[in-house]
């Protein structure tokens, strides 16, 4: 069984008017069955409102399923006694760096999680040092988070989770508010953590470039998982992705258009190098 598993997971937001009568129901997550393997780099794609955030909150026991079950490392998220263990096992990083930083000093911010779970003082300092080094922010440990760039803030937020020694980190569009260089910083830190520390990464995003190196990709639409597979398998369905209002990476798009124009190219080209190689092969 995987690190995160869901069975027939459904979640409904119920809107009520002032008297408390039900006005409408939004099914944000609709009968989702997932089995995410430990140690992988997993990406979840989907356009705005497709239910990604709601799904992610289930993995951290921030919301309870309307129907179905979620297990994190074998623990049922409905079990209140396990809530803290679940949150320690599966840490969560949010979209807006400003709204998730609690402390006024980088090192204190990273220490906040370990403090909450009762780690002894000396050990907290060790963990803060290790995790700041792991995200390359150690030299900023005495700085105020307000003075950092967006990418640096998100790296601090990631360090804050890493310091709790989770098996799995869930990131809900961590790069949505960053500039391209900040985005690269964050994504490469995530790959580093995944490779070196063997932390499972669940990256939620709508930037296709960020999922190219993932082990497994899931695509969500209207609360359902509509596609799953390796990045190559996913991107070979350029047309379907477009219908889901997702942009494929430029290179993949170009390859797709060339193919439409009659040039025989393989499906799901992901990088410039692959495209060059395929075109050279075609010419020669």
């Amino acid at each position, binding site marked *: 069984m995987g690190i995160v598993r869901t069975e027939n997971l459904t979640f409904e937001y119920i809107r009520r008017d002032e008297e408390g009568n039900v006005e409408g129901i939004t099914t944000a997550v609709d009968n989702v069955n997932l089995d995410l393997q430990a140690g992988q780099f997993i990406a979840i794609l989907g356009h705005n409102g497709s239910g990604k955030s709601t799904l992610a*909150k289930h993995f*951290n026991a*921030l919301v309870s399923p309307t129907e179905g079950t979620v297990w994190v490392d074998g623990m049922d998220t409905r079990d209140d006694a396990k809530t*803290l263990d679940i*949150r*320690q096992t599966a*840490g*969560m990083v*949010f979209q*807006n760096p*400003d*709204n*998730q*930083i*609690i*402390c*006024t*000093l980088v*090192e*204190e911010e990273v*220490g*906040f*999680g*370990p*403090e*909450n*779970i*009762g*780690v*002894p*003082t000396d050990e*907290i*300092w060790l963990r*803060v040092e290790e995790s700041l080094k792991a995200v390359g922010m150690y030299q900023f440990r*005495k*700085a*105020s988070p*307000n003075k950092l760039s967006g990418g640096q803030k998100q790296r601090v937020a990631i360090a*804050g*989770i890493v310091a*709790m020694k989770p098996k799995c980190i869930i990131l809900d569009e961590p790069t949505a508010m960053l500039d391209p260089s900040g985005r690269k910083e964050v994504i490469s830190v995530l790959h580093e953590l995944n490779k070196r520390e063997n932390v499972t990464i669940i990256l939620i995003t709508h930037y296709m470039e960020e999922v190219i190196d993932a082990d497994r990709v899931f695509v969500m639409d209207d609360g359902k998982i509509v596609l799953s597979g390796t990045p190559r398998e996913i991107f070979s369905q350029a047309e379907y992705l477009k219908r889901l209002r997702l942009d494929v990476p430029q290179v993949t798009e170009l390859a797709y258009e060339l193919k439409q124009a009659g040039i025989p190219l393989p499906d799901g080209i992901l990088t410039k190098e692959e495209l060059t190689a395929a075109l050279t092969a075609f010419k020669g």
Partner: protein
Amino acid sequence: MIRDITIGQYYQTKSVIHELDPRVKLMGTMVFIISLFFGKSIWMYLAVTVFLAAVIKLSRVPLKFIVKGLKAVLILIIFSAAFNLFLTDGEVVVRLWKLKITKEGIYQAVFMVIRLMYLIMGSSLMTLTTTPNNLTDALEKSLGFLKVIKVPVHEIAMIMSIALRFIPILIEETDKIMKAQMARGADFENGNLIKRAKAMVPVLVPLFISAFRRANELAMAMEARCYHGSEGRTKMKPLKYNRRDRIAYAVLAVYLCGIAALNIYMGGRII
């Protein structure tokens, strides 16, 4: 002007004052404020000034930062100076139409201005040299005895530290919204008080909405990081008194006794 508020901001540097236990600084600020309202002789103000100047020098915070905090309360200072100047009875020095300025009034006004200025400077110095976390830790620890009568000391301290962290963010946001509204033709500078207050409505509404959204997200982020109150929580920086803290307490005691002695000796005289 809105950017001038330095209360609650932290100035990062290395100094003896920065390294003092926050409880000492809390106590020191209290002692300093009390000493300000002790007496009214010129010698006492001289002693207070020397003490404040020495602490500022030791803290290595540029004076400019500390003075900046005064701008935000300038109006308050002017008002209280004017009240004291015109409304104190005594030996008349100048008579302006129906208003009279007395010798006592001048002293009162000058002292009041000094008191208010030092009050602000003293308390900004505390926040400039203490991280909000440290400060609230000190409050939590000093007021810990209130837990016995079910006062949620930890929660109050946490609320304070978050509020302090969000002050600069919200100030920046207010600035941004004001500029955005100005670009749309809003006028915050002209017109009478009511008109200017009305002009603030389109600033405050988006500010409140965004503050609530932030609060909501922050609460979730804290929960996600296993925050569940003070129960079972350890400290990364537990408060511990060192030698320099004991020295600082001694200095404070000497200072307070000195001021008190000076006042008894002066017995209400000004010079």
